[in-house]
């Protein structure tokens, strides 16, 4: 695998920087090379926030996303700002709870925040559910590694609720992956 680039974008407070760290940690557990960076403003909540993860079997020189293999947009602003950074055959995932207008019919629209609330009763687990979704769709890291990484990096005492969110995301991601595969075969 040359370079696989993932951008998680939304608002401060949604947990996207942590989600990027967890994904990067899973890649390390899978013995892959990885670089994780982030971009956010001075505020603790609100304002644009994003996290970038580059995974490769080889050396990673430039540590930021050049053209995303996966873009996750958790806010309308993030969607509008970054969708042009997605690769031609890349995955463009939006949380349809927050993103009402999509710029392309190629967007994979999933009510991520609503699914998280349904699975765990906590909207704040949406970013972890989104991680499950991405891993279910792409297989970019192993399920085992992402589970270990979630357990290692989420605040103590929230492991189980986050694993629940992750598993819901993984199931949804795998379902979407098989639908997309069938779609391509037709």
């Amino acid at each position, binding site marked *: 695998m040359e370079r696989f680039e993932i951008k998680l974008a939304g608002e401060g407070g949604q947990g996207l920087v942590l989600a990027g760290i967890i994904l990067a940690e899973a890649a*390390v557990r899978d013995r892959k090379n*990885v670089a994780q960076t*982030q971009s956010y403003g001075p505020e603790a909540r609100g304002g644009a926030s994003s996290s970038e993860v580059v995974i490769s079997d080889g050396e*990673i020189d430039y540590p*930021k996303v050049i053209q995303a293999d996966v873009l996750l947009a958790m806010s309308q602003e993030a969607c509008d700002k970054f969708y042009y950074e997605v690769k031609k055959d890349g995955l463009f995932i939006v949380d349809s709870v927050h993103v009402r207008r999509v710029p392309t019919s190629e967007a994979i629209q999933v009510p991520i925040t609503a699914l998280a609330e349904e699975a765990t009763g906590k909207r704040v687990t949406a970013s972890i559910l989104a991680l499950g979704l991405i891993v279910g769709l792409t297989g970019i890291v192993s399920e085992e590694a992402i589970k270990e990484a979630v357990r290692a990096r989420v605040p103590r005492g929230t492991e189980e609720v986050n694993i629940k969110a992750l598993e819901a995301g993984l199931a949804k991601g795998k379902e979407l992956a098989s639908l997309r595969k069938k779609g391509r075969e037709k």
Partner: protein
Amino acid sequence: MLKLVQGNEAVAYGAILAGCRFYAGYPITPSSEIAHVLARELPKVGGKFLQMEDEIASLGAVLGASVGGVKAMTATSGPGFSLMQEHIGYAAMAEIPCVVVNVQRLGPSTGQPTSPAQGDVMQARWGTHGDHPIIVLCPSSVKEAFDLTIKAFNFSEKYRTPVILLMDEVVGHMREPMEYPPSQPPEVVERIHASTPPEWYYPYDEEFGDVPPIIPFGMGYRYHITGLHHDRSGFPTLRPDEIKSWVARVFRKIEANRADFTLYQEEWTDRAKVLVVAYGATARAARHAVKIARAHRYKVGFLKLMTLWPFPEEVVERAARTATRVIIPEMNMGQLALEVERVVGRRKVQRVNKVDGTMITPGEILNAIEGGRG
């Protein structure tokens, strides 16, 4: 074991392995994680962590600790680095070993705390007043942040000088896999001591050589430390011969040992027509661009500088020997470019500058490489 480590965390881990046992600082983005980790880890190894009222006091406390015989450091970003300049000069004058980390953010003034920049390159060299040598190291990865922190302590002790670790927001906040704890313990330099009895000891005595040993306060050795020009005993002097020999010695102790602390990575410079010189996070974009250009048969060489000051003139000159063009990308309006232009003679120097709070991309450097083909 490979662990996912942040650049700032790597600095803190490196400091502890290098023997740092005292940190005083005032938190500031994007450097604060260095303080967070050391506040947690230093007490575990018998060290001390102090949060001070500001950055002036922070470096003051560090210098006091160092004179007390303890390896000490502080970390900050642009606004705090400006405040520390006074004491950086004091450290240079009194020859007190210390490590000052500056994780650069967009400036001037408070600028933009979470945005990367490389605007403090000249400040790191010339920020404090008066003529003085200084060593400035600059990492471009998490592993390098770790390694160069250890080296910063080593050079600071070996040459009895302040050393600046000049990072940027990207490297400070980035996470990458790193072997930690390392399988082999790093080489650590301890402070030089003297066996001279207290009544014969002079803290600035050239008889010891260019780097006289600094014996910690509290061991029965009584001497004077001042920011004024001083004689061998540390007391102020007006005598031109004493001032002159002090200046000559502190420059000599650094200049004569350049080969020891000039760190760089040079690749593909044999027969290169174009040379890209870069440092810090920008070196990551530059190497990416150079590899793409080489895959398209451009004869491009790459030079990454990890020691920025004293400026490694000979290294740059040699790397550029076959080049007709030298490209220098920087997240500032052109600072190290001035040095590069000074040493590469008649070769064309192309600057790639970006000051908007984002990293220079490989595409922007590729444009420069392609721009002047021929």
